[in-house]
């Protein structure tokens, strides 16, 4: 930050950090991204989850999922590849093992859901709508690492329309559609999601990518290819947010390589209303809290009293 700040100067009674995603209000715009924060409880000993904007859990489908063979991740320059394969306990296992903890938090839990058919998406959405206490649903139509489901729905506008519409029909929970970056233009997908009743968009998911061990000549992932995340994708993600912002009115949650407040502010200026911390959770679990504090410092330094003023405030001339 350009101006010097001392601890304790952050608090300002007039400053508004809260943002809305449909009917859901977040105390601040910083959440943790699906797949990088488990089901919340795992990180509860390392940071105060109640200071976050929201916790977004790892993708859940109807039944348990074993996941892909190992190796499942590989470190690359300024990022990582993963092909976990959405391992998870299924709806019932999730509710049994993790829901009471998430429900006890003062911040909303956003449930990332997926399926292999339109009907399964709708059934999972209905189950979480009926559960009571869920903050919002994030529709994962963009995981690159499973053969059926996920990305196929995020790379065909007609299928995407059916998934969003089917979920919209069965629940009044705010719906967030997590769009795939693996398309020529994100705009038609953003428009379809908005038209079918999505309350917000998450942009972006991981980028299809590959790495090879040159000694063994084998791919570094058992799945051969995986999804690239981390700081190396940030400029591409910012551009996707910028593209979508000019096309739709609904809130956008920007994500892709955020490590610090400056990264998050860039997403807001490009058009995001909120942000999510992903890969950085793995190496610096306190990142989200540092980003919240840094955003407050920035607002104070620039005499901005409402975080919402930053959304799309990039200056083009």
């Amino acid at each position, binding site marked *: 930050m350009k101006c010097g700040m001392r601890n304790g100067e952050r608090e300002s009674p007039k400053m508004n950090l809260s943002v809305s995603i449909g009917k859901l209000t977040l105390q601040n715009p910083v959440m943790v991204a699906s*797949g*990088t*924060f*488990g089901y919340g409880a*795992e*990180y509860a*000993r*390392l940071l105060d989850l109640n200071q976050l904007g929201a916790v977004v859990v*790892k993708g859940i489908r109807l039944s348990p999922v*074993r*996941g892909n*063979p*190992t*190796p*499942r*991740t590989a*470190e690359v*320059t*300024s*990022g*990582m590849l*993963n092909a*976990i394969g959405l*391992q998870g306990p299924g709806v019932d296992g999730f509710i049994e093992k993790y829901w009471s903890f998430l429900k006890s938090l003062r911040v909303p839990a956003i449930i990332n859901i997926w399926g292999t058919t339109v009907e399964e998406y709708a059934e999972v959405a209905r189950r979480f709508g009926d559960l009571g206490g869920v903050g919002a649903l994030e529709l994962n139509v963009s995981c690159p690492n499973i053969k059926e489901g996920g990305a196929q729905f995020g790379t065909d506008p007609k299928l995407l329309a059916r998934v969003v519409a089917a979920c919209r029909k069965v629940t009044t929970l705010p719906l967030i559609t997590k769009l795939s970056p693996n398309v020529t233009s994100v705009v038609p997908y953003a428009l379809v999601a908005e038209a079918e009743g999505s309350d917000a968009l998450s942009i972006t998911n991981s980028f299809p990518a590959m790495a090879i061990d040159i000694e063994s000549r084998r791919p570094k992932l058992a799945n051969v290819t995986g999804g690239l995340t*981390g*700081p190396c994708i940030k400029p591409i993600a910012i551009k996707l947010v910028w593209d979508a912002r000019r096309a739709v009115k609904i809130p956008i949650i920007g994500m892709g390589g955020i490590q610090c407040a400056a990264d998050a502010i860039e997403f807001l200026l490009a058009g995001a209303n909120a942000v999510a911390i992903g*890969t*950085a*959770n*793995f*190496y*610096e*679990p*306190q990142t989200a809290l540092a980003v919240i504090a840094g955003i407050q410092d920035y607002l104070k330094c620039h005499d901005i009293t409402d975080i919402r003023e930053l959304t799309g405030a990039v200056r083009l001339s």
Partner: protein
Amino acid sequence: MVERTAQIISNERDTDAYFRLVLRAPEIARATQPGQFLHLRIPPLREALLRRPFSIFQANGETVSVLYKTIGKGTDALARMGAGEELSAIGPLGHGFTVPARGGETPLLVAGGYGMAAMYLLAERSPQKGMVFVGGRRRVDILCEAEFRKLGWEVRATTEDGSYGEKGMVTQSLLAELKRDSGKRKLFACGPTAMLKAVAKIADEFKVPAEISMDEHMCCGVGVCLTCVIPVKTASGWEYQRTCTEGPVFDSREVMWEVAR
């Protein structure tokens, strides 16, 4: 489990490519159980973002130490750090070894290379003294033998090239001992997966229990990323479980070895 900035007390070469790192981390030191690990962020690694996991070797009062081998850019960068420098440590992590009970089975420890370090606290805290079988490719791969002897444990070393101890594989000398007497024994092992697999097979043959510590690639270290999974038997088949959370120590009979890499 806590995240703390830990100062390096010392970081010195042990033998060959092996180093001993001692960190000042009182809370971690006090909470450490045998077989647990530390997850370290190595500051000089700017473009390699992920933390690196290391078994805890010793935990004394305010310090914890690890014994590591330089095998890549993470450990190379760590080896260049010196006393007084700081790094971020998360720990102690993972589910460790069951400390033997007084009057229970005699512990037989089986270690390959730096796997030896992961077993030191187990030997130190075991009320029941036992034997250590340690193997390596060459003499320089046999680590911290003196520390185990100081605890009053018998150490049998094996090297593949015969440059130290008996020539051969560590499992051969374990086999010889079990053939002599396999009654009331329990195995504890840490080393390369191939060695662990061989130990599991021996445990099966002699019908002795075995706890094995798996060394897998890790990313988050706290159970969320699902990188470090191994196949573990369940009532209905098998599932992937996390080495960082359900492990690194597993009952060898629970591991689905035919699927494990």
